[in-house]
């Protein structure tokens, strides 16, 4: 059921768009591509449905799922409901990596992805090292470490912008940071999809352990948890997922903080249910919001604008209904 919702959302987004395509044409394209039929369809329709709308919807679903689920996992791990997917500096690390690669390799795409990814991991590693300074209460320090690292990388991003060639490099950096699903291609799905999927699978697998980890270090240890390893897996998976997402879509706020909370209100705090629900809701949410952004005006409304504007009323309504769900 949970898996079905995002699929429905993806199918819906094949139908939606400024360029009018008839339902039958869409069906024909899909059947053709699945080798189930061989209709004559206009090339523009094929490209539009199969190379523009479909990869965009798939990527949107992946990104949404990754951000939401990482947020949920980090909240559980750090026992702090205000934590979001970017908390350990993943986003700004990735941003800096990309900016650096653009300057060093003049926008070679693989290098950009690679650097973005490597620096996302580096940021998390640095946060972790700062968090280790005082090892009896590592959580708060880890999160603070993340904030620090995050801010340093943000500053470094500004710095690269400051030194970048304004005609050649700067525009690419700005574009990259702004991010968008608009340019999604199967190549993006291939490249960034791997870490995202690994992250998603990792978090799905370890989801119950997050419950146990949220008991606090002392109790979790006494309950038989290998703290370093299990925390490491959660952090690593969430980092992979977020880094992958940021690589293709830029920095999208909100989803990684609020979707988990919406899910908490809907299904409770047990991560066994929370993690898959966050995934599904995150995916649906981002795909649908992106659909709305694509159709309401001619020029696309950036995702970041809509996520909050559409999500916030929903959140408040839910809050009123569930009275906060036990918090």
């Amino acid at each position, binding site marked *: 059921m949970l898996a079905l919702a995002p699929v429905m959302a993806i199918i819906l987004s094949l139908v939606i768009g400024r360029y009018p395509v008839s339902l039958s044409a869409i069906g024909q394209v899909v059947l053709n591509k699945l080798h189930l039929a061989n209709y004559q369809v206009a090339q523009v329709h094929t490209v539009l449905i199969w190379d523009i709308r479909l990869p965009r919807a798939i990527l949107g679903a992946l990104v949404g799922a990754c951000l939401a689920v990482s947020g949920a996992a980090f909240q*559980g791990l750090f*026992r*702090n*409901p205000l934590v979001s997917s970017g908390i350990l500096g993943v986003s700004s690390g990735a941003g800096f990596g990309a900016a650096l690669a653009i300057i060093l390799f003049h926008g070679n795409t693989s290098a950009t992805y690679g650097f973005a990814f490597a620096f996302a991991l580096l940021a998390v590693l640095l946060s972790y090292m700062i968090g280790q300074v005082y090892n009896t209460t590592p959580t708060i320090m880890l999160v603070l470490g993340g904030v620090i690292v995050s801010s340093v990388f943000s500053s470094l991003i500004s710095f690269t912008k400051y030194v970048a060639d304004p005609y050649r490099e700067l525009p690419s950096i700005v574009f990259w940071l702004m991010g968008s699903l608009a340019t999604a291609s199967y190549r993006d799905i291939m490249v960034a999809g791997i870490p995202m999927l690994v992250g998603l699978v990792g978090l799905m*697998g*370890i*989801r*119950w*352990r997050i*419950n*146990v980890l*949220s*008991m*606090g*270090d*002392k*109790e*979790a*240890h*006494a*309950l*038989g*948890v*290998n*703290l*370093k*390893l*299990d925390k490491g*897996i959660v952090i690593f998976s969430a980092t992979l997922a977020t880094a992958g997402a940021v690589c293709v879509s830029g920095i999208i706020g909100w989803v990684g903080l609020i979707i988990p909370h919406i899910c*908490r209100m809907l299904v*409770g*705090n*047990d991560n*066994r249910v929370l993690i898959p629900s966050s995934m599904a809701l995150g995916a649906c949410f981002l795909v649908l919001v992106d659909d709305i952004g694509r159709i309401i005006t001619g020029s696309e409304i950036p995702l970041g604008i809509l996520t909050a504007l559409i999500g916030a009323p929903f959140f408040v309504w839910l809050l009123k209904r569930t009275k906060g*769900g*036990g*918090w």
Partner: protein
Amino acid sequence: MHLLELNDAGFTYPQQRDAVFSSINLRVDRGEIFCLLGPNGCGKTTLLDCILGIHRLDQGRIKVNGEDARHFRPGEIAKHVAYVPQRHENTFPYTVIDMVKMGRAVYTGRFSSPSDIDKEQAKKALEIVGMMHMRHRPFTQLSGGEAQLVMIARALAQQTSLIIMDEPTAHLDFKHEMLVMETIVKLVRETDMSVLMATHFPNHTFYFENRDIPIRVALMHDHTFLESGKPTEVLREDNIGRIYRVKARLAEFAMEEGSLRQLIPLRTLTAEDNCDESQY
């Protein structure tokens, strides 16, 4: 082979000058209850934490089931020892049954969730402490005593041969206190389990002694064990006076259930009552 063995254990908190305790020797065998008694802040919780591997001893060593605890993989201790903490800090409002299921973590693969068997075990544990009817309530909304019972159920669900309890009956009412005591007796008797507990109630130890459970008690004082042995031998009026600076009376009742010993505190000692030079 002892279930648990501490040799010459010592520990100091980082940045603290004085050791919390040192030269502690302790042995817990199968089917035995071991009670730690001692004034507030004497280091009971810290000692239990060291056994659980939460702190690392500065000195001495710990053997669990004959194995040196230092060689345990992280988390492995949970196969041998379950833990009921003195205080639990709430974060997310998990339901009661979900809390208890966490006791099954050690039997659950890293990448899996509790199985049906685990669920059954969790329910059984909840039944033992009489909290089944609250299993779907958020843990954060329980009363202090109810929460304590759930924590005990969680430890029971862990099904270890040793349970470490840190003041398990604090916050419990008359009935639940009795229930916990009886549960401990039953478990020790029937399943050969052992319990290591910190408590402030000498009478608990007499209760166990009275039921013919193998029980030993250690009086912790001045950074080490002052004495350890059978409750009747250790919890003498003079010892209590020395450690707690409290005048207490060890009374004995004859009842149909047999004779019953009770240590009754009367008043604190003042400088005039000086019985020895203990620092308290």
